[in-house]
């Protein structure tokens, strides 16, 4: 089980030696990244197979918690830790040359940090991995080397750095209160955290880590960066990195900060995010920014789902997050050459029937048309919100319904344009590259598989959620490590 640390160590090692390997022999450099990611996936699968009981804690460096840093392994962590190398491999930058090597190095660093975010059980360690993900993504955001890319990346960096300072203050407050950073240890110190200062610490951490999670007040960077960066990078940031940031917030909410006010804060911010995101997407004139705003809306849904208490909340949040993890990268890949004005897409479906068909499939699932997985995700979400019963949660459910209508409007409007007759004298945009189309097809197949195996999938999500929603196994696994020696 200790080998799970390889999921972080191997991509880091590969990122360090990649520039050297590329200098020794070009094919070697070309191979290092994908081979490492495949090895990482294998390590993750092995760990899942070897996982006994609900959760296992690994003491890094052999230093027992709470003194040392731990990795906490349960199925929730493994799902996301495995999604990281898989998604990275699908969106791998197959470029060549000096810049290609840098891009690949940064992508590997991003993969390592995301795996670390999924596994880490230490507050400051999470902060370090979060910063690593942030720095790598600033670099990747400039990958088109346009003036707009540099300006957007700078604004992103400043907002994110501001968030990091706020998060660091939050970490300091937690340390002031408890003198420890281990999440399991913090869970046993509830008394010291359930006070206004503990809530303030949570809010600081929420704002800090919310930047990458595209949370409402700190998401101004999203449309700029996603429009200016290449679609592959947008897909990686929207699909993967945002989910890991949400996972970190959820861990804190479930294990450490059990105050009801913390949940309400998440619900309110998520709801505002849904409203602003969906309406801005509705008004957007170009595909890239429409997808960016829609991503903000979807992440709002995820946050709302996780604000529901108990297993129902985690199950709904997990379902919405995983669905978005599959759909949004696919849509960004389809927007590879369709990223421009939506109006200009008239008739694009005639030049690329497969692309248009895939777009319709993903749009239908995103809106939540049965029997596609998106429907079940929204079903769980609405059920959970209604189950809470308080007026605030019911208002949230209402917002979800309104957002769905708005979402359906702009997505179907776009889909209809794809099949419209092109205006005389204009040329619809070219079809997407085979690589992008192939990857999108693969993701579409995953979506269809989700329809076929919806029952075992739902059972699995329920099982994972039942373990993750309960702080007892989390603490118990750390205790077992300390007592077992």
């Amino acid at each position, binding site marked *: 089980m200790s080998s799970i640390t390889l999921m*972080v*160590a191997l991509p880091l090692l590969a*990122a*360090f030696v990649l520039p050297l390997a590329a200098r020794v022999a070009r094919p070697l450099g070309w191979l290092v990244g994908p081979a490492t990611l495949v090895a990482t996936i294998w390590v993750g699968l092995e760990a899942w197979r070897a996982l006994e009981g609900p959760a296992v804690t690994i003491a890094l460096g052999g230093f027992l918690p709470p003194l040392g840093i731990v990795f906490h392994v349960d199925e929730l962590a493994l799902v996301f830790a495995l999604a990281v190398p898989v998604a990275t491999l699908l969106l791998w930058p197959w470029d060549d040359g*000096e810049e290609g090597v840098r891009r690949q190095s940064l992508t590997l*660093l991003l993969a390592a*940090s995301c795996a670390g975010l999924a596994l880490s059980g230490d507050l400051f360690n999470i902060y370090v991995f979060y910063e690593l993900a942030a720095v790598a993504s600033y*670099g990747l955001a400039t990958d088109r080397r346009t003036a707009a890319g540099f300006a957007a990346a700078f604004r992103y960096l400043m907002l994110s750095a501001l968030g990091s300072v706020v998060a660091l203050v939050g970490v300091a407050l937690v340390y002031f209160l*408890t003198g*420890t950073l281990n999440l399991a240890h913090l869970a046993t110190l509830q008394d010291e955290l359930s006070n206004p200062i503990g809530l303030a610490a949570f809010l600081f951490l929420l704002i800090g880590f919310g930047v990458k999670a595209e949370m409402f007040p700190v998401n101004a960077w999203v449309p700029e960066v996603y429009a200016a960066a290449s679609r592959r990078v947008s897909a990686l940031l929207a699909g993967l990195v945002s989910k890991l940031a949400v996972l970190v917030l959820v861990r804190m909410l479930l294990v450490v900060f059990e105050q009801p006010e913390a949940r309400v804060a998440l619900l309110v911010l998520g709801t505002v995010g849904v409203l602003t995101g969906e309406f801005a997407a509705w008004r957007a004139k170009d595909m890239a920014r429409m997808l960016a705003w829609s991503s903000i809306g979807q992440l709002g849904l995820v946050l709302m789902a996780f604000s529901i208490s108990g297993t129902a909340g985690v199950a709904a949040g997990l379902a919405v997050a995983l669905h978005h993890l599959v759909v949004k990268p696919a849509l960004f890949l389809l927007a590879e050459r369709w990223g421009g004005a939506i109006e200009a897409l008239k008739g694009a479906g005639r030049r690329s029937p497969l692309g248009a068909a895939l777009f319709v499939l993903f749009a239908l699932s995103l809106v939540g048309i049965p029997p596609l997985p998106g429907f079940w995700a929204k079903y769980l979400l609405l059920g959970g919100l209604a189950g809470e019963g308080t007026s605030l949660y019911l208002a949230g459910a209402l917002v979800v319904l309104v957002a769905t209508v708005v979402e359906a409007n702009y997505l179907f409007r776009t889909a209809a344009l794809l099949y419209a007759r092109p205006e005389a004298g204009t040329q619809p945009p070219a079809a997407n590259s085979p690589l992008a189309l192939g990857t999108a097809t693969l993701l579409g197949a995953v979506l269809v598989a989700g329809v076929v195996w919806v029952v075992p999938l739902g059972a699995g999500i329920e099982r994972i959620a039942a373990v993750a929603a309960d702080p007892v196994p989390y603490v118990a696994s750390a205790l077992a490590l300390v007592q077992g020696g």
Partner: protein
Amino acid sequence: MRNLASLLFIVGLAFLLLLVTGVFEFGNPPMRVGQGIQQVGPQEVGAANLVTAVVLGYRGIDTLGELSILFAAATAGGFVLGRHRLARSGAEAGFVLRTGADLLFPLLLVVGLYIVLHGHLTPGGGFQGGVIIATAFFVPLLARPGAALDHRWLALVEGLAGAAFIAIGLLALYRGGEFLQPFLEKGDFGSLVSAGTLPLLYLAVGLKVGAELAGLLARLAEPAGEEAA
């Protein structure tokens, strides 16, 4: 309007923070973890400098992450600034600066290495020493704007030092321990060869940080030659 919202946000933040810290008792922290490390740290790790014991032992993965962040920043910086311009004037600085740089270079290098290698005993360590090593390589650049750092050598040192840090960690894993678990003899407490693998890790950190920062500084300093002309 936007400024108003920002101001409101800042005032709110200040108020919240002041309110929060008014409650704390300064100078009497709970120290749940700190106490434990002070009790078992010297035996468990064998480093006289407990901060080093925490940085490389208890929180070793943080340090690895920190190294990776510097690497990511240097890589992204190179990615952003692009290829360096090679054509430059060979104008040299004055005699005093040149001689000073020649004298400073070995001095800074030795001081930097000393600080790196004594990181487990006295204040200082890989990061502080690495900064000094980077300065050692940067000062000659100031004195001779025509000279250029060989980025290939820097990349080699950088990559190998980073790989060495992880390799030491993986070796521990291979030996049946956990990733980054210190091994080797702990040695005499407080002597130079002690604390197992910690000095080796700090050496890797120092070299990597030195190479990375030297490269970063050289890249930022590039148009300096044009201006001197």
